[in-house]
C-alpha cells in the first residue's frame, strides 16, 4: 500500500489562549472519502483551516509527500489541495463565471480550464444558466454548488469540503452528496466535514469523530454507522 495522500500528526491549533485542536492525528488515502464528524465547536473547521494553512498549527501536515508547514496557503492549491470553506465563501459581488475563474486562478492550461468549466456545468446545470448572475444573489444551495465548483476549478488532487449540506433542503442535500460520491468514483480524494453524520458516513470509506479538539473514535464508516455510541450521539437514534 502506498503512503497516504494526506497525513496530519499531532495537530495543535490555538486561537489566542483557546486550544481548538489538542493534538490530533489522521490520514487520508488516495481515492478515499474520509469524514470528520463531531458536534458544534469540536474543531472540524479548524482542522480544515490548518490543512489549508489559514491558521498556524503545531504539528506536522504532509500532502503528497511534501511537508505543508513550509508552504504558504496560496501555494497549497497548486500542490493539489482545494477547499470549499465553511459558509461557502463565494465572492458575492462577482458573477458565477468570475467566481469560477477565480477557482482557476493559479492555472495556465487554458483548454483544460475550459474543459473543467464544462464538467462543472454538467454537474450543476443550474450554474450554467446563470453565469452572469452575482453570486451574492444566489440561493444557499446554488452558492454551495458554486463553492464546490470553484474548488473543482482548482483541479485538485484532494477536495476539502466544509459542511456542504448546511442549510440546504433535503432534496438538494441528497443531490450534493450524490455529486460528492460521483466525484470520488472518478478518482477525487475527499475530506468531508459534516454535521449531517448519517449522510456523511453513508458515502464515506472511513471517518474520525472529533470531540472538543480530540479524536475520540476512528473506524470504517460502516462500523461507525453501527456503533452504539455514534448512533446515540451523532445519528440521534
Amino acid at each position, binding site marked *: 500500500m502506498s503512503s497516504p495522500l494526506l497525513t496530519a500528526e499531532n495537530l495543535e491549533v490555538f486561537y489566542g489562549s483557546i486550544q481548538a485542536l489538542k493534538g490530533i492525528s489522521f490520514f487520508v488515502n488516495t481515492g478515499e472519502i474520509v469524514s470528520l464528524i463531531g458536534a458544534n465547536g469540536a474543531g472540524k473547521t479548524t482542522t480544515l483551516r490548518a490543512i489549508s494553512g489559514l491558521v498556524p498549527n503545531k504539528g506536522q501536515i504532509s500532502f503528497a509527500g511534501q511537508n505543508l508547514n513550509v508552504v504558504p496557503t*496560496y501555494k497549497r*492549491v497548486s500542490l493539489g489541495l482545494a477547499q470549499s470553506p465553511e459558509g461557502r465563501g463565494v465572492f*458575492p*459581488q*462577482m458573477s458565477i463565471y468570475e467566481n469560477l475563474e*477565480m477557482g482557476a*486562478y493559479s492555472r495556465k492550461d487554458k483548454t483544460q480550464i475550459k474543459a473543467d468549466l464544462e464538467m462543472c456545468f454538467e454537474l450543476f446545470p443550474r450554474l450554467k444558466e446563470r453565469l452572469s448572475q452575482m453570486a451574492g444573489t444566489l440561493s444557499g444551495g446554488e452558492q454551495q454548488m458554486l463553492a464546490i465548483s470553484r474548488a473543482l476549478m482548482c483541479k485538485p488532487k484532494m477536495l476539502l469540503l466544509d459542511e456542504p449540506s448546511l442549510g440546504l433542503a433535503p432534496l438538494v442535500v441528497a443531490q450534493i452528496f450524490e455529486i460528492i460520491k460521483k466525484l470520488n468514483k472518478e478518482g477525487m480524494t475527499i475530506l468531508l466535514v459534516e454535521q449531517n453524520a448519517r449522510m456523511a458516513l453513508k458515502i464515506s470509506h472511513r471517518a474520525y469523530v472529533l470531540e472538543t479538539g480530540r479524536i475520540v473514535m476512528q473506524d470504517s464508516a460502516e462500523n461507525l454507522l453501527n456503533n452504539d455510541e455514534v448512533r446515540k450521539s451523532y445519528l440521534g437514534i
Partner: protein
Amino acid sequence: MQDFIQHIINGVSLGSIYALIALGYTMVYGILKMINFAHSDVYMVGAFAAYYFARFLGIENNPGITTLITLLVVSMVCCSLLGLAIERLAYRPLRKAPKLNILITAIGVSLFLEYSGQVVFGADPKVFPEVMKDFVLFKIGDIELKSFDITVLIVSVIAMLALEFLIFKTKIGRAMRAVSSNASVASLLGVNPDRIIAFTFIVGSSLAGVGSVLVGMKYPKIDPLMGMMIGLKAFVAAVLGGIGNVGGAVLGALIMGLSEEMVVAYLSSTYRDAFAFGILIVILIFRPAGLLGKYSVEKV
C-alpha cells in the same frame, strides 16, 4: 446661464482631480479596511518629484504634451515606489495588529512625510514647471473651454477608464476584488494577498501621481503641506461615495468638485472648505455607508 455652465466645467475639472486622489483612499480601504492617511503626502511627493525632474531635465520652460507625459510618468513612478515602500515598511508588519494601531501608524507616516518634506524640499512654496500653455481651446458663446480643464478632464478620464479596465476586466483586477471581498478565501484559491495589496498601493499611488501633476499644472504652487487639504477633500469624497466603492469615489469627487465651485461662485469663497466638511458631517449622520456604499461602515 452661461456662467453656470462655465462653473460646471470648472467644477467637473476640479472634481476629476479629487477623484484621482479619492480612488487611492477607497481602493486601499476596500482591500485593507484602513484609511491610508499618508496617501495625500504621497501625492505631495509626486508633485515634488515632477518638479525636480523637470528642472533636472531642463524642461521646466518647455510646455507641451511631451512635458506633460514625461512628468506624469515620473510622478506616477515615484508615487508608486513610495506607496509600495510605505505599505511594505509601515503597514505590512501590522497586518494582524488591531485597527487602531494601523490607523495611528498611518497618521505617523503622514506626519513623517510632511515634516521630512519641509526639511528636504524646504518649507516655502515652489513654482511648478509650466507643463502646458493655458489657452482657450473652444469658445461656445461666452463659455470658454480652456486647455487646462480639457487636459485635466482627458487625462483623468483616461486614468479612470484604465482603472476600470484593470479592476473589472483583468485577472489581477479580479484578484483585487477577491482579496477585498474575502482575503482568506482568495488565498485558498492561490492568490497571494500581500502581492495584491502591494499592487493596490501601486495603482492608488500612481493615480495620486497623475493628480499631482494636473494640480501642479493648474495651480502651480507646490509645498510640502499641499496634500493636506486636497487629501482631506478627496477623503471626504471617498466617504461620500461610499468608501471602498470605486464608482462611489468618482461620484463623490464630482459632487465635491461641483459643489465647491458653486459655493465659491454663488456664496463666498470663505465657505469653500467649510462646505466640504459640512458634507462629511451630513453624510456621516444620514448615510454613513455613503451614496453607493452597501455595507455599514466598519469602525476604524
